[in-house]
């Protein structure tokens, strides 16, 4: 019994210790960012209060933050899933774009279907488009041996221009730089329809889908035979092959699933937020942000949710910071600093160094006594 209590106490102590690191990291980065803001002649307290006010200040802001968090969770999961198979899915951006444009098509072309069916179909078409896009990359890696990263980058460009081409041709609204709008039956339900608190936000049920997908991703990766095989291939493809695991198949499969997550993110952006796709002047950034989200989230589905939230708060806090007179660039730098500090886990490193130096000093002193 006593040992159990001790065990519990030790566990609690360890958890507290572990909390301390990211906590200190965030605090230090906030202070560092604050000094920076101050050096630009602006009020750091105002900067941070506007960041929080702009992202969490009221229900509407909170809703808008979740609108941003939703695709970030999914693209972060996409990166995470592929990463578990040791694949760097930098093509997430292209898969996101394909998901979005495919959803526009499905949401527009199948108008007339009953809502629940139409919406489901639209989301699935988006996910499938992303999945197919990604599995091409996976197939090239597994069968031809050309590298995932290079193919991913190229497929991103192909996706962007394909989307722009479709917006300009088949899905065009004449004279406009954006696509047709999807039918109402393909739109995700918005919280503003029932809750007056969210009246001015676009918060939609996509966030729930994203959270469920995170759990599904966690389950697949950690609790199923497929996940076991994917992770084995990721850690050690030779050992996986030795264990009767088909390496190529798992590479393609994990890219397929990763692509489906990214495609779903795009489809949710279409059905929940934009209802259409604009001509893209560059990458949307959701895919690339997904990489940072996944890394800060420790390549773990649950970590991704939390880190996506951190990113959402910073992104949605940005506009109000700008309105309060903090230049856009400084806002970007502050966001960068925070991510850097959290991701680098540097507090742990520094604490380790200090400890070591102390020990050295101690031994040096002892020597002196001798």
């Amino acid at each position, binding site marked *: 019994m006593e040992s159990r209590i001790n065990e519990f106490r030790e566990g609690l102590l360890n958890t507290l210790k*572990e*909390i301390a*690191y*990211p*906590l200190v*990291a*965030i*605090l230090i980065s*906030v202070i560092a960012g604050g000094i920076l803001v101050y050096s630009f002649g602006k009020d750091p*307290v105002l900067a*941070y*209060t506007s960041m*929080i*006010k*702009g992202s*969490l*200040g*009221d*229900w509407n802001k909170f809703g*808008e933050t979740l*609108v*941003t968090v939703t695709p970030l969770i999914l693209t972060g999961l996409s990166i995470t899933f592929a990463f578990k198979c040791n694949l760097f899915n930098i093509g997430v951006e292209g898969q996101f774009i394909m998901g979005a444009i495919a959803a526009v098509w499905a949401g527009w072309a199948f108008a007339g279907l009953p809502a629940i069916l139409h919406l489901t179909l639209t989301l699935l078409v988006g996910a499938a488009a992303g999945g197919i896009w990604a599995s091409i990359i996976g197939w090239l890696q597994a069968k031809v041996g050309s590298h995932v990263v290079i193919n991913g980058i190229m497929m991103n460009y192909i996706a962007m221009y394909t989307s722009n081409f479709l917006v*300009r041709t088949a899905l065009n609204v004449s*004279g*406009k*730089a*954006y696509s047709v709008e999807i039918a109402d039956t393909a739109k995700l339900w918005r919280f503003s329809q029932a809750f007056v*608190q969210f009246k*001015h*936000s*676009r918060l939609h049920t996509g966030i729930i889908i994203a959270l469920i997908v995170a759990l599904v991703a966690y389950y697949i990766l950690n609790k199923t035979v497929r996940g076991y095989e994917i992770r084995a291939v990721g850690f050690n493809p030779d050992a996986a092959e030795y264990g009767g695991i088909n390496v190529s198949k798992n590479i393609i499969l994990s890219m397929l699933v990763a692509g489906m997550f990214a495609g779903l993110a795009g489809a949710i*952006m279409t059905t929940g*937020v*934009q209802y*259409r796709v*604009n*001509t893209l*002047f*560059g990458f*949307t*950034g959701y895919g690339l942000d997904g990489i940072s989200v996944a890394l800060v*989230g*420790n390549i*773990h589905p*649950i*970590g991704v*949710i*939390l*880190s996506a*939230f951190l990113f959402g*708060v910073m*992104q*949605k806090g*940005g*506009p*109000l910071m*700008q*309105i309060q007179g903090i230049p*856009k660039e400084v806002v970007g730098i502050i966001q960068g600093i925070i991510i850097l500090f*959290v991701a680098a886990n540097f507090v742990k490193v520094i604490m380790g160094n200090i400890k070591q130096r102390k020990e050295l000093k101690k031994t040096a002193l002892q020597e002196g006594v001798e």
Partner: protein
Amino acid sequence: MFKKGLVLFLALVMVMTIFTGCAQPAQAPAAPAEPDPAEEAKPELSFGMITDVGGLGDKSFNDSAWEGIQKAGKELGVEPVILQSTKQEDYEANIGNMAQSVDLSIAVGFLMEQAMKVGSEQYPDVKFGIIDTVVTTPNVMSVTFKEHEGSFLVGVIAGLATKTNVIGFVGGMDFPLIQKFEVGFIAGVKSVNPNAKVLVNYTGAFDNPDKGKEIAISQFKQKADVIYHASGGCGIGVIQAADENDFWAIGVDQDQSAVSNNNKVLCSMIKRVDVGTYTIIKAYADDKFEGGKAIELGLKEEGVGFSDNGKNVSAEIKAVADKAKELVVNGTIVVPVTREDLEAFKPVEIK
């Protein structure tokens, strides 16, 4: 791993609480439009500008719009607010953010049309302005420009300045707004130099100087010696190509002669976005704000024109251009807007 995630979350929550603690007075989820106590202390009039993802520093469209706003701000003794968007999807939220902070929010750029529609409906008590496209909500004033008229003038200049009788046009993305530039320009060239050939190419982007340079060089290789661009940031590449290959470039939106190192900008089609933003604010300050109204600024309103800070346009050519302007202002010349109009366009002799 799960534990690590949890740990991160707890840490986040703790930090958040510290902040929200600081932000307590403002945090009450009051009606969004209700002004903050801090904002109440501000002068009665407040206004701000929202850019698209292009942002300030383009030495062109957005910078010009901001100039107009700053000018109005100086006159009215108000410090204007700026909000630069980072993502297309954020336009709506950004318009909302701005609407909560100021009385008059001006969105600069046609890309924000949809978002402005939604945003202006959400905040019916706040006034809005939008540049370069038309939104008909009763609390929005829209300003557009007759770019074809300005382009017509630089077309005239190009038609007279060319020695090879080959002239280039580099567009950004191929859609009607940019086609207006193309069409007006060609009409101007044909009016003074019916034999000149105009090469038309589009970069497919607004933010890719390399692409602009590439196209400009290929037009140069086809003997073009004057190239007009309406391609945003790609134009920097066009002007670079002019610097390196010694041909004339024509700038767009603002006077771009400073972009060239070797003074190879012949002239620039200027779109007085500053006039646009200034007009809206002025109307609001003078209680003449007309919601739902769309103003189109052309040569007549001094909303478009050409500028020649590089002093590269000869006096004779300038005289012809001024004459052309007169003819457009008095209605003798109706500059075509679409490619169909252009086909039907009969050049009028400019004397």
